[in-house]
């Protein structure tokens, strides 16, 4: 159960397991082969003509053989038909499930959004309470956890993160104090994740309702829900001195070893910088050069390094998370954009983005910006739901259905992308080591490995397109970049 990949997107409503789609593809292949065999049997059947079989010199067994071939043609056609019917049944079931899921999701969003908008419209106090409450709880929670986990390590290190503990982890991971760990089954419950997704999506409707926007119009907000909600939370936080954006500056950059392009999703994810291992570098850019061709670039973006609501020196923080959700470039976005400029990437340079957690959300925003010649995108556990990723290049979005971080991005609107989902802890115990275990890097790494052995066409073709991006390069270099926030007086 926990190893089952649910594949969706790719421009269709169909949602099913990798096993199911692989089965459907096998059936299509079987139908194609039977069609070919049927044609071949027709050719064989014509080798001995009917009038020849009636000749006195030809034994009856030749006629038996002819009858056998004709029967084989019928049976082979029957196999072809059966495989096509089974394939269609799988597609219909997957599409029906996907459509039902989409329809129910849409209904829930409409209902919660309009209900929230109505309440806020008639009671603006609710809006104030919602925003102030969200900001205060978020900020206070962040500060408490930050203090509870303040180890004797320097700034910008992942284990300084409020959601980090003594157990080493990657940026974007979370493992706070014992209470959170002991009760992490609540946050890991897919129902909680769904509620977070709905709340995130409906937050804009609540704000719009409080501002007096008629309910009929709030439903037209669509993807703006998360943006409006996040903007409102940022504004509310800013009045309390938190969640204030700042410019960023390059603190360090250094070359690092690389032998070639990534081979598969697991290797791709492993190239996302672990700030603990890269001396704080949050961005890694690989340059693929071929004489006579434009340089190509793979950009890897780290997750949240600190969950502190105050904009300290680390740009991959909670403020950037909120800014990215609100749709304007946060510190992490600005850092990656600056690193790309330093690497020599302009609007025409072919580029692929890969990110984990906040890095996934940032990668999606960069791809959606239209400022770059994006050729591919892979996000793992990123809040990408309401980021409208353009079509025309392979985009793979990986989310765990028991991870609340992607749910913070709202409903997933990128139906053209390959959406890979996995319920990590379905049928197995939730470990007490982390606060948000399903968001932990090691589980996304596990999912990436499962994707590498997945057989469904959507996943395998996206993988091969992403992996072939750097092929043929005669020189590959890799540079790690570390950025810091510029303190504001």
């Amino acid at each position, binding site marked *: 159960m926990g190893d089952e990949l649910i594949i969706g997107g790719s421009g269709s409503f169909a949602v099913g397991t990798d096993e199911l789609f692989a089965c459907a593809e096998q059936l299509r292949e*079987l139908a194609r082969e039977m069609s070919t065999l049927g044609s071949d049997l027709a050719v064989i059947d014509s080798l001995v003509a009917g009038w020849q079989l009636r000749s006195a010199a030809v*034994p009856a067994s030749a006629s038996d053989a002819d009858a056998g071939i004709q029967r084989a043609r019928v049976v082979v056609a029957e196999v072809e038909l*059966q495989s096509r019917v089974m394939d269609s049944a799988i597609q219909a079931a997957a599409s029906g499930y996907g459509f039902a899921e989409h329809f129910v999701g849409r209904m829930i969003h409409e209902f919660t959004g309009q209900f929230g908008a109505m309440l806020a419209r008639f009671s603006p106090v609710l809006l104030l309470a919602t925003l102030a409450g969200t900001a205060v709880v978020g900020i206070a929670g962040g500060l408490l956890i930050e203090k509870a986990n303040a180890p004797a390590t320097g700034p910008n290190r992942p284990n300084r993160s409020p959601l980090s503990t003594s157990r080493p982890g990657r940026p974007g991971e979370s493992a706070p104090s014992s209470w959170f760990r002991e009760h992490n089954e609540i946050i890991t419950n897919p129902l909680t994740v769904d509620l977070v997704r709905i709340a995130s999506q409906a937050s804009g409707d609540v704000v719009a309702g409080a501002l007096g926007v008629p309910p009929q119009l709030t439903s037209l907000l669509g993807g703006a829900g998360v943006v409006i909600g996040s903007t409102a939370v940022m504004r509310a936080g800013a009045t309390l001195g938190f969640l204030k954006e700042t410019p960023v500056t390059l603190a360090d950059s250094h070359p690092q070893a690389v032998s070639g392009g990534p081979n598969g999703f697991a290797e791709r994810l492993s190239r996302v910088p672990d700030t603990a291992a890269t001396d704080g570098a949050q961005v890694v850019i690989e340059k693929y050069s071929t004489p006579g061709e434009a340089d190509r670039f793979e950009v890897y973006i780290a997750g949240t390094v600190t969950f502190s609501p105050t904009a300290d020196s680390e740009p991959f923080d909670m403020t950037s998370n909120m800014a990215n959700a609100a749709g304007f470039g946060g510190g992490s976005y600005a850092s990656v954009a600056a690193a790309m400029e330093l690497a020599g990437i302009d609007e025409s340079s072919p580029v692929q983005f890969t990110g984990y957690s906040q890095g996934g959300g940032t990668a999606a925003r960069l791809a959606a910006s239209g400022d770059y010649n994006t050729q591919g995108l892979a996000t793992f556990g990123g809040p990408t739901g309401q980021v409208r990723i353009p079509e025309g290049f392979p985009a793979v979005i990986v989310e765990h259905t028991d991870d609340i971080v992607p749910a913070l991005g709202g409903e997933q609107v990128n139906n053209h992308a390959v959406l890979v989902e996995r319920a990590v802890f379905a049928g197995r115990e939730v470990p007490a080591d982390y606060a948000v275990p399903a968001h932990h890097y090691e589980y996304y790494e596990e999912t990436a490995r499962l994707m590498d052995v997945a057989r469904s066409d959507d996943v395998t073709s996206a993988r091969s397109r992403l992996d072939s991006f750097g092929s043929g390069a005669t020189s590959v270099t890799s540079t790690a970049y570390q950025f810091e926030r510029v303190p504001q007086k």
Partner: protein
Amino acid sequence: MNHSTDLVTGSTPDTQVARQVLAALERQARELTHLLWRLERARRVLVPATVDSWRGLSKLAFDSALGGLETTMDDAIATVGAAIQSTRNAIATMSSDG
């Protein structure tokens, strides 16, 4: 019945037909054997195993359809196998008849 004789080859029309048919049957046997190999390979490689993703009645329906597909596939293999055997019998009979 035609009793005329070809003055060049010295054979009757039935003998000529028999020669043509024998050559065609030999080719038929070869091509059917290759086709049987492809059919058996498809049975082995392309017929899917049961899918655990289905639950309840859907699983029952899918497994039943899969069982039907396997049976039809086996039938196709047996039919082609029988056609090959009949072809070989015909070749043997015609060869022994000279």
